[in-house]
């Protein structure tokens, strides 16, 4: 039997889906977390296998965004390759029935078997909302069960009801009811079944008074963002030092057994430990960044931030709604670009997709951190801030401001000037669930480690081969790498990148960096380990480049990474989400152009000043 979960945005469909299937889909506290149909299965107590579809939230079957259209099409049995569901489980937030019941009525009119799951019943009780479930069920003509999707066992009643029998179809009283008629019906049902002590939660009002205050609200948002970047830098340091020395010790231990001039020794020492070690140390920073993003997502604060920034974002041709996808892009542009599906307006959506790569993703953090630690002195500014943290903050803001600039240019170039919509729901605040946050961090750590163990490992080993062969001729005076394929390739590229201050080692590192940005750091580690006479491992890459590069080169490389379109997966997602190669070409082209110009300006100015 095929069951579809439908309901208004942010009513807990995905949490319920995870309860039923034991899945680990992402849950957060804002509308539009689920943008795709997700499928799972579970075996009911009766032994039947049930297929469950988790659908994006919709306010109405009058779809106004691509994710709402998916829900509409699946429910109507019009989605390509997808049979209409045998049973629809309509999920409604018990604390927000006035809004959610209307969609329930719309779903009932489909003429398919429906079960209503009243979710968040615990929150409803806490708020003093009393619901006469039996009467509600009688009036709607569909079975109604209570659920608490975020609690273990909170979906028991729903499972039992689904397993029992497929409910009868209720013929709709009116075939084509108007919006007003639907609302009238909702009102009469509510009047008969629900008693509420008050409309809002006192704590929401209290927090919003400050969080949405014209002055304090913006100050809180700015402080919060600044604090996150400071924390990423300062909290991670002791752990990073520990990982660094651990890897160095392991490298010495492992390679100690091998003859010092063998190829295997070089592969392990210069390729593996120098390359992978250089990337691995950044795990703590990435996790700290994710910790903050996950907490913000769960708390319900993000839509508030979108509210505060809408006006500014609208001026430059974006929408407040773009704040959430763009913030996710700080973690990684790929989920960020997918999250744009909850933006209704296709123009706003395309702009957001095209500027998302300008948000500094966590893969760029290793590059920034390496260069900042090597070139920017760690000293305190005004007693509280760390200069390194301030530089990092500046780099992030360089990305943000250029995104605003690019969006503004796109707005000017656009021919269609008709009105864009905001209309965004602000959810109740919620205390983040420790288990969900833990799961999210664990997943992120696994993704990072898999990348390190997969693509980054493969590219690092490949680079080691390219920079080891062919070996130097007899009587060679230069380091071996100068005669290798990679060395020659780097020298060829150097012609293009010399005006922006990149030496041939950086040019080599840029190439594998195309597959994943972190690889650039691993590649630098390998390239320098290969050209160095001593056995320098990852931990010494910083001091090494501090000696060899000019400050202008370092700043130029930082500027390059603010823009550089060096991520194949991002370009692939842009292709998939916009279904257009043209947009991919536009994104890659403008990012490359900006990167080159920014680096050129940075390098030439820094050189002129020094």
């Amino acid at each position, binding site marked *: 039997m095929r069951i579809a979960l439908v309901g208004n945005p942010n009513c807990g469909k995905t949490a319920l889906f995870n309860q039923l299937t034991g899945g680990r889909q992402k849950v957060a506290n804002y509308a539009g977390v689920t943008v795709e149909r997700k499928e799972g299965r579970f075996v009911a107590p009766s032994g039947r296998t049930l297929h469950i579809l988790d659908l994006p939230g919709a*306010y*109405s079957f*009058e779809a*106004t965004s691509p994710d709402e259209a998916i829900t509409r099409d699946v429910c109507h049995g019009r989605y390509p390759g997808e049979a209409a569901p045998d049973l629809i489980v309509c999920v409604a937030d018990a*604390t*927000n029935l*006035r*809004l959610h019941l*209307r969609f329930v009525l719309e779903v009932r009119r489909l003429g398919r078997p429906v079960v209503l799951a009243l979710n968040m019943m615990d929150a409803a009780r806490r708020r003093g909302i009393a619901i006469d479930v039996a009467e509600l069920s009688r009036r709607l003509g569909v079975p109604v069960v209570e659920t608490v999707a975020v609690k273990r066992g909170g979906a028991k009643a729903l499972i039992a009801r689904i397993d029992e029998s497929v409910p009868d179809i209720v013929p709709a009283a009116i075939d084509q009811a108007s*919006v*007003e008629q639907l*609302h009238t019906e909702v*009102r009469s049902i509510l009047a008969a079944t629900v008693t*509420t002590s008050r*409309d*809002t939660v006192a704590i929401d009002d209290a927090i*919003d008074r400050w969080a*949405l*205050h*014209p*002055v304090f*609200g*913006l100050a809180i948002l700015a402080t919060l963002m600044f604090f996150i970047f400071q924390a990423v830098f300062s909290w991670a340091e002791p752990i990073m030092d520990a990982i660094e020395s651990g890897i160095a010790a392991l490298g010495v231990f492992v390679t100690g057994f091998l003859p010092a001039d063998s190829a295997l020794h070089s592969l392990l020492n210069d390729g593996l430990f120098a390359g992978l070690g250089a990337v691995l140390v950044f795990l703590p920073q990435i996790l700290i960044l994710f910790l903050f993003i996950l907490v913000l997502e769960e708390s319900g604060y993000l*839509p508030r931030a*979108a*509210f*505060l920034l*809408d*006006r*500014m974002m*609208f001026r430059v041709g974006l929408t*407040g709604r773009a704040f959430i996808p763009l913030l996710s892009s700080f973690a990684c542009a790929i989920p960020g670009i997918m999250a744009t599906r909850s933006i209704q307006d296709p123009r706003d959506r395309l702009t957001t997709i095209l500027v998302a790569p300008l948000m500094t993703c966590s893969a760029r953090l290793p590059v920034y951190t390496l260069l900042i630690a090597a070139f920017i002195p760690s000293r305190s500014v005004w007693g509280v801030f760390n200069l390194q943290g301030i530089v990092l903050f500046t780099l992030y803001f360089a990305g943000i401001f250029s995104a605003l600039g690019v969006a503004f240019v796109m707005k000017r170039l656009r021919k269609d000037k008709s*009105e864009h*919509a*905001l*209309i*965004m*729901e*602000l959810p109740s605040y919620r205390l983040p669930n420790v288990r969900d946050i833990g799961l999210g961090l664990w997943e992120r750590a696994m993704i990072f480690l898999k990348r390190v163990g997969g693509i980054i490992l493969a590219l690092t080993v490949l680079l080691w081969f390219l920079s080891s062969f062919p070996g130097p001729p007899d009587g060679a005076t230069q380091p071996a790498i100068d005669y290798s394929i990679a060395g020659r390739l780097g020298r060829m590229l150097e012609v293009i990148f010399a005006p922006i201050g990149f030496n041939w080692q950086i040019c080599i590192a840029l190439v594998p960096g195309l597959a994943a940005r972190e690889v650039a750091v691993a590649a630098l580690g390998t390239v320098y380990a290969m050209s160095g006479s001593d056995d320098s491992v990852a931990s010494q890459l910083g001091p090494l480049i501090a000696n060899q590069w000019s400050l202008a080169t370092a700043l130029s490389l930082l500027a390059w990474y603010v823009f550089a379109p060096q991520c194949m997966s991002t370009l692939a997602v842009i292709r998939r989400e916009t279904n257009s190669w043209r947009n991919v070409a536009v994104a890659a082209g403008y990012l490359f152009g900006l990167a080159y110009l920014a680096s050129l300006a940075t390098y030439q100015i820094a050189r002129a000043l020094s």
Partner: protein
Amino acid sequence: MRLSDAPKGANAVVQSVSDAHPADPIAQRLRDLGFVAGEPVRLVARGPLGGDPLLIQIGSTRFALRKSEAARVDVLVDGAA
């Protein structure tokens, strides 16, 4: 009075939602979200820049609406004629 002109904190009742142009999807969405005649609404807060967007409470739900969107909603403010 238009909802976008309502005073902050005042309680009001929706009279109607008017289409800014024929087949206006924004007006349709507002009706879908419950902005229909007789519903009580309240302007809770205004955005920090230029007083835009507006935070509108309808039932127990809060929506951020831009001024141009809220201007489609005609309301009667309590205590005002």
